[in-house]
């Protein structure tokens, strides 16, 4: 007996490359590695006050954010550039400091790599570009869904061949 349909949760974020010129009193630009495009964006925004954080290390970004946002105004806007995982994990740090999601502008991620959360052993496997993917924690072969968890910056993964270990679906490239 085949199930009629599979429940499909799609929460894959949609990123836009065109940046609207929203008003703000302070803007903060955070990138994993500085690109010309991001540098140009930083230069082009004429705001009373702005800062640039060019740092791929999440721990040291956190320290800088605490200092930079200590006296920030309510009308703050944050621009983020980097891999999807970097942007959302920095996003979590920003939320803890009072920045809301509608104050964050995330640019299209630098690559199509996904982090995958294994629902069996809770390990997050990074740099996944094809599905199914082998879990770095338990070794199970995981289906990679479009169900994105913002706080983990990872997609939900579950064992694809739980009932028949010999059943291995064809590998497909993720977008």
């Amino acid at each position, binding site marked *: 007996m085949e199930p009629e349909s599979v429940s499909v949760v799609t929460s894959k974020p949609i990123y836009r490359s065109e940046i609207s010129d929203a008003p703000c009193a302070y803007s903060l630009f955070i990138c994993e590695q500085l690109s010309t495009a991001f540098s140009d964006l930083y230069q082009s925004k004429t705001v009373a006050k702005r800062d640039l954080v060019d740092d791929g290390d999440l721990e040291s970004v956190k320290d800088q954010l605490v200092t930079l946002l200590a*006296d920030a105004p*309510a009308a703050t806007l944050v621009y983020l550039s980097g891999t999807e995982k970097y942007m959302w994990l920095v996003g979590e740090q920003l939320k803890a400091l009072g920045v809301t999601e509608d104050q964050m502008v995330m640019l299209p991620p630098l690559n199509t790599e996904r982090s995958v959360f294994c629902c069996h052993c809770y390990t997050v496997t990074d740099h996944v570009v094809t599905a199914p993917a082998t879990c770095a924690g338990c070794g199970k072969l995981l289906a990679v869904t479009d169900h994105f968890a913002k706080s983990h910056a990872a997609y939900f993964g579950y064992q694809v061949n739980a009932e028949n270990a010999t059943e291995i679906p064809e590998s497909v490239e993720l977008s």
Partner: protein
Amino acid sequence: MSNQIKVEVASICQVAPTIREFTLEAIDDELYPFSPGAHVVVEMPSAKKIYKNAYSLLSDPADTNRYRIAVRLQETSRGGSIYMHEQVKVGDQLLISPPSNLFSPFWLAKKHLMLAGGVGVTPFMSYIPEMLRRNTDFELHYMYRSLQTGAYKNELSEQLGDKYFGYDSDRHTRCDVTELLSQQPLGTHIYICGPESLIQAVEEAAQTLGLPASVIHSEEFAAPKPGMPFIAEIKSSGKQVEVSAEDSLLEALEASDISVPNLCRGGVCGQCVCTVEEGDIDHRDQYLSDDEKAAGNAIMPCVSRAAGERLVLDI
């Protein structure tokens, strides 16, 4: 509503020239606990008809022995607030709904900025004790006209000290909303309760400054205002319901034994939404988005009316 609570009016107190406070105590059972920002719907059986209006609970949520509400006598009252002011006496019994909350504080905020206009101070009366207990950062900015409103201003000023800011437009002190918002730190959530004009002014200032929409919260119960009479036709039965100038569409439907689920009866909660098949709508609610209003296929019958002579409802 079958789950109504029977309460007794324990005391009545004039708290401003046009505002009366009612203390309600339970008769049979205990009162339900409630959260800051909650309201109850009070049933007012006047000689003409039964009015049902939502009022914010202004007592401390930790006190479940009594509820307190404040009612402003509305100049354009259809009868609800007149009934509360002129008919209700100490010892009378009233039926109220259990509390529900559409205006809860966002507790993760770094700071709470409350903007009250006139009798709109009431939900903040239940916020403040809880915010004091949690030791959160907050400010109350209270705009009133001392010849009409301004209830609780002295006790709030005394209790809150430098967290309290009063503006009396009958004495020409006004709040510069744009200036106030521009001074707020990151992580501030803003709560507005008062007339539509205040809510609009704050929303516009926030948008101009670049404050995110997600930190702006507002509540305004619109008592249904009268309008032109019209006919509501029920698609399923073909029944024609006459809606008089004074009645709301929801009241007219209920009088014809057509029950529509409802909660706040003030255009806020969204429970009573009905699908409109034909006819133009005069939208007066806070619930539907501008796009939904423009689409013209949904109405909140508690406050909104037909813009023409006839509406066909798909219910």
